[in-house]
């Protein structure tokens, strides 16, 4: 659906709906299901809006929406409060800084950028966990979560595609 160029974005549509969808997906994938001894993967769905929101446009509300998403992840998963809030904000800041370099690139290249930013978020979470718990998380477990999160790029691409042209002031 195309939107008129000059109209400001409705925060409920480009921030609220993706945020709720992320929360729902997180709750869904936390179901204790085991098939042939294998559990569901646990991707960080919040990486999708953290990447896409920074790509769409700079915003005052987006960092706080990311913070809320991160706090939800921490509390729902039972991790240290603030861990994912801070890690996602690091990723968001990276995309915001590199936004001009990323815009207009091909889809595979954007996927690579998404994987790179996801790697930065995971590295930040790894570092913050080390500082908070004074212990080193399993690198293999971190890698698996990075891998399944990097596979979420099509959702981020869809979100960027939908709202990128909605506000031409930031193209």
């Amino acid at each position, binding site marked *: 659906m195309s939107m008129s160029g000059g109209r400001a974005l409705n925060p409920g549509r480009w921030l609220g709906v993706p945020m709720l969808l992320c929360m729902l997906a997180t*709750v*869904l994938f*936390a*179901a*204790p*299901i*085991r098939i042939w001894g294998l*559990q*569901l993967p*646990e991707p*960080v769905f919040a990486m999708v809006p953290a990447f896409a929101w920074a790509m769409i446009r*700079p*915003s*005052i*509300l*987006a*960092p*706080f929406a*990311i*913070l809320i998403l*991160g*706090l*939800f992840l*921490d*509390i*729902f*998963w*039972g*991790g*240290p*409060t*603030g*861990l*994912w*809030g*801070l890690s996602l*904000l*690091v990723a*968001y*800041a990276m995309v*915001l800084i590199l936004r001009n370099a990323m815009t207009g690139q091909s889809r595979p290249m954007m996927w690579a950028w998404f994987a790179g930013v996801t790697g930065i978020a995971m590295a930040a*979470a*790894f570092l*913050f*966990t080390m500082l*908070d*718990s004074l*212990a*080193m*998380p*399993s690198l*293999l*477990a*971190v890698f*698996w*979560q990075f891998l399944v999160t990097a596979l979420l790029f099509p959702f981020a691409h869809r979100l960027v595609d939908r709202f990128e042209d909605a506000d031409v002031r930031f193209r």
Partner: protein
Amino acid sequence: MPFREGPLGDLKVPLTWTAAVALIVAAVIAVAFLLADRRETLQDQAYGVTRQTVDVVAKPVSGAIAAPGRWTGLGLDYVRSYFFTASENRRLKTELAEMRQWRDRALALQDQNERYKSLMGLRTDPPIPMAAARVVSDSRGPFANTRLADAGSERGIQVGNPVLNERGLVGRVVGVSRGVSRVLLLTDIASRTPVMIDRTNARAILTGDGGPNPKLEYLRGVDPIQQGDRVVTSGDGGVVPRGLPVGAAVKGLDGRWRVVLFADQSSIDYVRILLFKDFAQLADEKELQAKTLPPVTTEDQQTSILSIPTPALTPAAPAPTATTPPAATGAQPKPPVAKPPVATAPKPVAPKPAQPKPAAATPAPTGAPR
């Protein structure tokens, strides 16, 4: 009235800069949250009201989401049992024949164990009550490994209670609300559990790292562990009772000793929460809370134990060694007598090591060692 139509509608704010400021403010808030977090202390106070509220809300939602998966699993089990009944029957018969031998041996050992306990006057642990619960949510990432169980404070569950499934230890309760409790798994990076190697009694601390196989740290002793050794809880520190099965020892790719958890071998639907209350449940709390202390009695009712003894009148008493005659030892349970036991003077009845002090051969005037 919309903002753009108001008096501040023409105010032009550089959005990039304000967005940057918003980002910094949000980051500062996140840092403050992270610094204020006390999750790793695993204390009751560290689990705040926000977490409790989220758990209470998440329980029915996650329970409803998990239900189809559980039903599918039950359906698959039913179909599998229908098609594989004959082979399963054969397997169970073989297992039953093997288990009968183990049953006889277990009964004999139990009987022997009871006799030893009664002979030694051992005070064994009381039976621990437990509450069954269903897992409704499960987080498995590298930075948090917890589960949400649908039983809470109304069932008597408290922070610190150990959690098991039918195979072994799963973790312990770190947060309790009404109707729901949060279980920190052994694999979580904040988890530390005192364990021992069943074969050698060597102690270690089971340390989670977010992976499936937690590490064994601070292993003590010479050659304390071998591949496949059974690891159980040691009960040290009183957090978990002694002897709960944990897993089998394996050497990891990184050269560290790790544990393959028994709990991972079975389904994760249902857990048992032991209502274990530290060592406090081993003692009679009413007796401990008694206001009046028992009277202090001494051998000599006339003297206090706090009074300074007079060394000139009471030379050092001999230690109760082999030189003490049977008559003197037999007189110990009697009330103390004032007169010196002249008739029970010790005689050297057996070769004894050289006594450096002559006083050691002299009986104490009170007739009993102090």
